[in-house]
């Protein structure tokens, strides 16, 4: 049975899925052993500059670029259903690479950047020549970023920023960061402004690198009288919160699709081992315990894929999908965690080695349960919307 071809997929979506699947087989999978080894020996979950360059060139050649970016910025402007199919295929490889350009910041900038900012930052970024990071979280404000205290004060034609950010990804390679800081007296969402801060701006200090599970690294940043020109205010003064949240639901859809890709890989590996491994004279595939692992995986993958498709279709239609996005974010991350865990279990000792990708994917999903809203925050939101509670 092939559960991977969604029933209602358009011809383009099907062909895009095939194209991405081939790219994954030919270009990503061969890098996986080196990626696993690098992570296992303390080198982090990352690609070398050389590996990344080769992949970017390949993506350019195949037109795998800016799938959800408007055509005027060189993108393909595909429906989200197609994007979901591509994300799912990409996630089958345990290789830290996404189809460029990495889009959350791109969409925020697309919606609010000034003409000057477009030329200076957005265009090179959209072409993949520059990278960026997004600094929102603070030691005292993570899941609830409206509690942030980093402050920017106007001084002539500059803003002077003081404060501290934490858990920021992609910092070392970022040419600029988008920094969220308070500029007004407003409470919570009100009075938060986005700034573009270039790498090397005096007073912008990378305080420390924080190793995380799965070979990931995030960074703590300190801003000490960091002066940023007024033209680097991104969007409206005091109204940075809404654009930052833009496409939050698209990201959740992408995460859901990635979880399905990882779970599919886990199921493939589980199946391979179950059909080959014999213990006490019986194939694992003939043991009910393992059959139930497989059945659970198939059912959950199917359910989550339907959720992704539903979310994608509604997003494309412009519906309010906060509920669907929360449901998917929680369900898909927990599904992938459990399927990966069962696949590891099926492989016995081999499953918990760093020679197989299962453990590393398991850890990436572990991280996903925290960022883009921890599971409990989404569960609270789902319950609150259902029961009509406060907060």
């Amino acid at each position, binding site marked *: *049975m*092939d559960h991977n071809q969604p029933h209602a997929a358009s*011809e383009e979506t099907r*062909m*895009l899925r095939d*194209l991405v699947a081939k790219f994954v087989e030919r270009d990503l999978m061969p890098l996986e052993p080196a990626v696993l080894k690098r992570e296992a020996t303390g080198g982090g979950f990352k690609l070398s500059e050389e590996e990344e360059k080769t992949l970017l060139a390949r993506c350019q050649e*195949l*037109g795998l670029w800016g*799938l959800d970016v408007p055509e005027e910025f060189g993108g393909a402007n595909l429906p989200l259903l197609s994007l979901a199919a591509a994300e799912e295929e990409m996630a089958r490889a345990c290789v830290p690479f996404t189809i460029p350009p990495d889009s959350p910041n791109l969409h925020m900038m697309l919606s609010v950047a000034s003409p000057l900012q477009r030329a200076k930052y957005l265009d090179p970024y959209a072409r993949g020549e520059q990278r960026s990071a997004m600094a929102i979280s603070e030691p005292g404000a993570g899941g609830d970023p409206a509690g942030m205290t980093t402050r920017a004060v106007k001084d002539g034609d500059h803003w002077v920023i003081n404060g501290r950010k934490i858990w920021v990804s992609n910092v070392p390679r970022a040419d600029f960061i988008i920094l969220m800081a308070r500029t007004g007296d407003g409470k919570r969402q009100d009075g938060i402004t986005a700034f573009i801060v270039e790498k090397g701006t005096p007073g912008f200090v990378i305080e420390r690198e924080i190793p995380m599970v799965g070979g990931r690294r995030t960074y703590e940043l300190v801003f000490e009288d960091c002066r940023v020109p007024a033209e680097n205010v991104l969007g409206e003064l005091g109204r940075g919160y809404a654009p930052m949240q833009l496409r939050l639901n698209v990201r959740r859809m992408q995460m859901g699709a990635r979880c399905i890709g990882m779970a599919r890989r886990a199921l493939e590996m589980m199946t391979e081992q179950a059909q080959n491994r014999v213990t006490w004279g019986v194939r694992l595939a003939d043991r009910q315990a393992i059959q139930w692992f497989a059945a659970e995986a198939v059912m959950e993958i199917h359910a989550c894929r339907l959720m992704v498709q539903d979310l994608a279709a509604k997003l494309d239609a412009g519906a309010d999908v906060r509920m669907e996005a929360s449901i998917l974010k929680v369900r898909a991350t927990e599904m992938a965690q459990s399927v990966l865990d069962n696949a590891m279990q099926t492989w016995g000792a081999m499953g918990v080695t760093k020679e197989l990708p299962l453990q590393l994917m398991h850890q990436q999903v572990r991280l996903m349960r925290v960022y883009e809203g921890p599971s409990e925050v989404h569960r609270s939101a789902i319950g609150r919307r259902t029961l009509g509670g406060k907060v």
Partner: protein
Amino acid sequence: MKVLVPVKRVVDYNVKVRVKADGTGVETANVKMSMNPFDEIAVEEAVRLKEKGVATEIVAISAGPSAAQEQIRTALAMGADRGILVEHDGTLEPLAVAKILKAIVDKEGPALVILGKQAIDDDMNATGQMLAALLGWGQGTFASKVEKDGDNLKVTREVDGGLETVSLKLPAIVTTDLRLNEPRYASLPNIMKARKKPIETVKPGDLGVDVTPRLTVLKVEEPAKRQAGKKVGSVQELVEKLRTEAKVI
């Protein structure tokens, strides 16, 4: 010159084929289907001929169910210009396909038809040769190299003893072997462009071709399971066992 490229819809080469429980054939319901890999090579070769300015138009043809449009669309995304679907739901034997192709050749008047040497489903290795016979054209089968040579086509063939080079007068038939080229991926921009390329649909009857099967399939079964091999400790033991157990020497 115009080039025709027939493309067949087959079970994807990554799928582990399963025989249907009633033994009438292999399971194709809910199975991923793709273009026959040898046909991808044929499309690629045609596109390269067009890029070199040798071919002027590439027409992709598939005979099969309406879903075979997918394979035509893939050929269009790789660079074919238009498609023809000969829609038929039942079995299509190589001779029936060859007759269908002949009818289309008569209508389209191509100088070259490039086919896969075989399809990975039934491995018949027959359609190209049958088509050449029906048309009375020359054929270069199992091609590993195709070059324009004046008015002729120089085709390098992979034969048992090595490589054979034949010169074909056009119009001609070529069937592709694995080493002819490495097919490109249909890039995203080309996938989007393929959307707008036309696919015409006809029925075998419209072409005046009777596709009634001439063969009866009695039974399809899986190959016998391979027995585990035996490990031997030395050449001496191997020779001994070949003599006494296998009785082959």
